[in-house]
């Protein structure tokens, strides 16, 4: 099966600032991929590179085997819903669908109309008059009716209330089953992605911190709690993601393929949110260390 997204040493610079650096990924098709990280981490840059809106400064990126934005066939295979699910305020829903039909060779008009009807939207309504949730649903309808193999969405639910979020994700996931769609979506909130994604990329400070299947990530990351111990005295096959110590106790978040036999540790499972936060904190600490030392 062709990979949904492959990147090798991918980077993008704006002036002197690297918005994305040294990004290497290999994501098989058939996943719902969550891209998480704080605001400004480089999520939008990565998604814009994948959808062909941006060209890389260094490295290569392949989407469904082709170069993003290279030709009409490639553009037809990849759908992109930009941040804040943009629509044309002055155009009606029907006009949006007509535009979609004109711009997309694989446009599925019946699907689009059926979806609008099921959502209970009035086709004569102008997009500017729709609620945020309805506008997002319109943008999603345009993305799905294009009949892409991969749909890329940039923070699609960030501006929505909880009910609209849930309805949006229901519609999106239903479409993945119905049309065998691969999905990449970004969010700065893990809770948006926890049940919906089966592949996760954590992006912090323009770098990919960790990427992999959610199930595998959860199975290989553990929290160890026990008597005080130096980080250096952990086995070599245990990669330390985060460590904190009191005078008596140490708590580590580690990644390992091997079982943990040391009876000194209480081993507990991590939630996806704990896991992501551990990677985010690691970066924060390495960054702030010089400042802390200067203060001492």
């Amino acid at each position, binding site marked *: 099966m062709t990979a949904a997204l492959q990147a090798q040493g991918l980077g993008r610079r704006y002036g002197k600032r690297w918005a994305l650096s040294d990004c290497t990924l290999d994501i098989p098709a058939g996943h719902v991929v969550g891209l998480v990280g704080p605001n400004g981490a480089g999520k939008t840059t990565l998604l814009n590179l994948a959808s062909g809106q941006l060209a890389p400064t260094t490295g290569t990126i392949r989407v469904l085997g082709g170069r993003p934005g290279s030709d009409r066939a490639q553009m037809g295979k990849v759908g992109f819903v930009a941040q804040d699910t943009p629509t044309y305020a002055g155009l009606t829903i029907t006009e949006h669908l007509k535009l979609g039909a004109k711009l997309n060779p694989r446009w599925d008009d019946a699907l689009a109309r059926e979806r609008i009807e099921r959502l209970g939207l009035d086709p004569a309504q102008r997009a500017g008059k729709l609620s945020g949730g309805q506008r997002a649903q319109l943008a999603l309808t345009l993305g799905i009716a294009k009949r892409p193999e991969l749909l890329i969405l940039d923070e699609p639910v960030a501006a929505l209330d909880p009910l609209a979020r849930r309805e949006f*994700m229901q519609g999106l996931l239903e479409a993945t089953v119905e049309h065998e769609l691969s999905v990449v979506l970004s969010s700065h909130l893990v809770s948006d992605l926890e049940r919906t994604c089966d592949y996760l990329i954590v992006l912090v400070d323009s770098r990919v911190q960790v990427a992999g299947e959610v199930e595998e990530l959860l199975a290989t990351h553990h929290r160890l709690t026990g008597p005080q111990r130096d980080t250096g005295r952990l086995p070599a096959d245990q990669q330390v993601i985060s460590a904190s110590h009191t005078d008596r106790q140490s708590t580590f978040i580690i990644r390992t393929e091997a079982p943990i036999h040391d009876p000194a540790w209480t081993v507990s499972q991590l939630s996806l949110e704990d896991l992501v936060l551990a990677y985010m904190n690691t970066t924060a600490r390495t960054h702030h260390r010089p400042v802390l030392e200067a203060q001492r």
Partner: protein
Amino acid sequence: MIEFHLDERSGVSPYLQLVRQVRQALRLGLLQEGDQLPTVKEVVAGLAINPNTVLKAYRELEREGLVAPRPGVGTFVTRTLTDASLAAHGALRQDLRRWLTKARRAGLDDESIEAIFMTTFRTAAQEDIA
């Protein structure tokens, strides 16, 4: 037809929650041989969860011999769990009651009872695996 629900705070993975809910429905007689499970699309659209989670749960139930897929139609219950376990419930509950009375007499409060039960339960489960 049953409807699934997910408890975000249970700490149990969504896939396992689905498996347990089907087993529970089989035990209680809510699902019987020949009944259809909700389609993957229905579960995904209802709960907003990843389709692979549902597929994994259904495969696990299939592996346990509880359900079987009929291509193009859906997934159907092939076995019930009612009789065997329901009959044993009463006696087990009585044993547990007796044990609880003993624990209270020994001066254990609710939390201590829960702790002793969970640690024993986990140790036994781990020994079973090993």
